[in-house]
C-alpha cells in the first residue's frame, strides 16, 4: 500500500537520522571526555543553586504538562468525537517530535552561537557543548541543560497551538512534515531573534518575558495562514461543528493555567522575587480575562458560557505572557480584562470574515499575543524588573515602538514562512484528507481507532485478534 510504503520510507529516514546523529554523537561526546570531568569539578564562578534548579526543573515539567495533556484535552474536547483522538494525537506527537528535533539541532539553531543576529550556529548540534554547568548567558545558577530542556518545552507547545487552526482535516503524514519544517525554519530563528544571545530583536531591547512574540504571535499568525490555505471543513456554516466533550476542554484549560506558572514564572530562571512577581501577575491577568470574556459574552448574548470562561482564561494567559516579568499586579488586571474582551470580539469577527480557524487560534493567540506584546510596551516598569525596561506609562514611549517592531517582524516571519512551507507540502504530498476520510473522521481514517466505546461494545465491533 502507498501509505505503508511511504511510511516505511519515513521510518527509514527517521532511523537513519537517528543512527547517524545518534551513534556519531555518542562518540563525539565521548571524545571530549576530558572536558566532561569539569562536571565533577566545577570552576568556581558559576555555581548551581539547588532552589533555582528545583524551580526550573519543576517549571519544565509544568510546561510539558501544558502540551499534553493540557492542550491535547483543551483542543480534543472542542472537536467532534470522530476527530477526538486525531486531535489529541497532534499535540502528543509534537511533544515526541520536537523533543528529538530540539536536542539534535533545534536548540543549536535557536540558542547556539549567534550568526548575524538571525540564527544560532550549528556548533551545539546534538547538544555538543551544552553541558551540566551553568551557561551564564542563559542562567548563571542552573545547569545549562536545565535551561535547554525548559526551552525545549516552549518549542514543543508552539507548533501544538497551531494545530487548532487546521483541526479535523489535515493528513497526519503531512502534519508531521509541516511540524518539523515549521519548528526548524520559523520557531528556531524567531526564538533566536528574541531570546538568543546576539538576536537582533533582543539587541534592540524588545521585551518578551515568556513568549508573546515567539510563542503566541508566531502560532496565532501561522494559524491564520494555515486556515486560509487549508480551507474550510466540510459542513462549515451549516452543520453544527460543536465541541463533543466540554468537560475535557475545561480540564485542559485548567491544566494550562496550572502549567503556565512554569511557563511564565519559570522564565525567571531562578526562584525569587522575579519568579514570584511573574507568578502573581499571571494568575491575576488570567482571572481578569476569564471574567472579561464571560461578562462580554453575557452582555452580548445573554448567557455566560463555560467555554467562554475557559477561553477567556487562556486569552489572559496568552496576553500576560510577554509582560509577566515586567508589570505590577494592578496592570495585570487591566491587561487581562482587556484580553478577555478583545479575544471574545475577535472570535465573533472571525465568524463574519468566514475563514475556518477551527479552534480560534488566531482570535486567542494571534490577537491575545499581539495585545500582550503591545501592553508590555505600555505597562513595563523597572520597579518590578531592573533588567527589563520602562513602558509608555512609566515615561518611556520608545518602548512601544520597539515592541511594534518585534510584533511586525514576528507577524511577517510567521505568515510568510508558514505560507511557503504549506504550499510546498501541498504540492508534494497534499495537505488535506480526502472528503471520505474527513467524513469518517481523523480517528478512523488516519489512525484506525475510535475514541470511545462507552456502551455495548458488542454493537460496535466483531472479529477477534
Amino acid at each position, binding site marked *: 500500500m502507498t501509505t505503508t510504503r511511504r511510511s516505511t520510507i519515513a521510518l527509514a529516514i527517521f532511523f537513519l537520522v537517528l543512527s547517524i546523529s545518534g551513534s556519531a554523537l555518542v562518540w563525539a561526546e565521548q571524545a571530549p571526555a576530558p572536558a566532561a570531568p569539569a562536571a565533577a569539578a566545577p570552576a568556581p564562578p558559576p555555581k548551581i543553586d539547588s532552589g533555582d534548579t528545583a524551580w526550573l526543573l519543576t517549571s519544565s515539567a509544568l510546561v510539558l504538562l501544558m502540551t499534553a495533556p493540557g492542550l491535547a484535552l483543551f483542543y480534543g474536547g472542542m472537536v467532534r468525537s470522530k476527530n477526538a483522538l486525531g486531535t489529541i494525537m497532534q499535540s502528543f506527537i509534537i511533544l515526541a517530535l520536537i523533543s528529538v528535533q530540539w536536542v539534535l539541532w533545534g536548540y543549536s539553531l535557536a540558542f547556539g552561537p549567534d550568526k548575524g543576529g538571525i540564527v544560532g550556529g550549528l556548533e551545539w548540534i546534538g547538544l555538543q557543548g551544552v553541558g551540566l554547568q551553568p551557561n551564564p548567558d542563559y542562567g548563571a545558577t542552573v545547569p545549562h541543560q536545565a535551561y535547554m530542556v525548559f526551552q525545549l518545552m516552549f518549542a514543543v507547545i508552539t507548533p501544538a497551538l497551531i494545530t487548532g487552526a487546521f483541526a479535523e482535516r489535515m493528513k497526519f503524514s503531512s502534519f508531521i512534515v509541516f511540524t518539523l519544517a515549521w519548528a526548524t525554519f520559523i520557531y528556531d530563528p524567531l526564538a533566536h531573534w528574541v531570546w538568543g544571545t546576539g538576536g537582533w530583536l533582543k539587541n534592540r531591547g524588545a521585551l518578551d518575558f515568556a513568549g508573546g512574540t515567539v510563542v503566541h504571535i508566531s502560532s496565532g499568525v501561522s494559524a491564520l495562514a494555515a486556515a486560509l490555505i487549508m480551507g474550510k471543513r466540510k459542513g462549515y456554516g451549516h452543520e453544527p461543528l*460543536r465541541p463533543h466533550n466540554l468537560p475535557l476542554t475545561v480540564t485542559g484549560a485548567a491544566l494550562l493555567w496550572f502549567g503556565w506558572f512554569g511557563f511564565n514564572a519559570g522564565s525567571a530562571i531562578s526562584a525569587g522575587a522575579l519568579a514570584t512577581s511573574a507568578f502573581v501577575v499571571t494568575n491575576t491577568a488570567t482571572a481578569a480575562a476569564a471574567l472579561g470574556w464571560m461578562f462580554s459574552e453575557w452582555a452580548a448574548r445573554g*448567557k455566560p458560557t463555560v467555554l467562554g470562561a475557559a477561553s477567556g482564561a487562556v486569552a489572559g494567559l496568552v496576553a500576560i505572557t510577554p509582560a509577566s516579568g515586567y508589570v505590577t499586579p494592578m496592570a495585570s488586571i487591566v491587561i487581562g480584562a482587556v484580553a478577555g474582551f478583545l479575544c471574545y470580539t475577535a472570535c465573533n*469577527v472571525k465568524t463574519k470574515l468566514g475563514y475556518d480557524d477551527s479552534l480560534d487560534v488566531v482570535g486567542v493567540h494571534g490577537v491575545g499575543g499581539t495585545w500582550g506584546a503591545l501592553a508590555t510596551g505600555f505597562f513595563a516598569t523597572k520597579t518590578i524588573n531592573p533588567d527589563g525596561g520602562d513602558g509608555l506609562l512609566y515615561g518611556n514611549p520608545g518602548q512601544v515602538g520597539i515592541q511594534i517592531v518585534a510584533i511586525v517582524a514576528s507577524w511577517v516571519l510567521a505568515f510568510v514562512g508558514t505560507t511557503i512551507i504549506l504550499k510546498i507540502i501541498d504540492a508534494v504530498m497534499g495537505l488535506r484528507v480526502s472528503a471520505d476520510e474527513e467524513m469518517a473522521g481523523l480517528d478512523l481514517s488516519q489512525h484506525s481507532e475510535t475514541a470511545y466505546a462507552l456502551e455495548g461494545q458488542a454493537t460496535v465491533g466483531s472479529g477477534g485478534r
Partner: protein
Amino acid sequence: MKKIEAIIKPFKLDDVKEALTGIGVIGMTVSEVRGFGRQKGHTELYRGGEYTVDFLPKIKVEVVTPDNLVSKVVEVMASAAKTGNIGDGKIFVHPVESAVRIRTGERDEAAL
C-alpha cells in the same frame, strides 16, 4: 398482539413504568431517541457560533401486549406520561404477528 410504542418525556419514564406494572405489565423495552415536533428546541452558544438544537431527548417505550389489553395499556400510559405541556409525546399502536420467548421457545401470548 399489538406493540404499543410511546414517545415520552424522559423524566416521565418512572411514572410510566410504575403505572404499567400497576396494571400487570411485566415486560417492556425502552430506548433513547430524539424528537422533532411542535415543541421548540433550544439555542446553544459556542464562541462565535450559535446553534439551534431542535431534536429533543425523548424516551421510547415499547410494550407488546395481547389484543385485549391494548386499550387499557394505552390509557394508562397516556395518563402517566401527561404533563399537559407541549412535547408530551405520542402513542402508536402496531400489529404484531407473532412472538417467541428465546429462553423457552414459547410462542405468541405465552411468550410475553
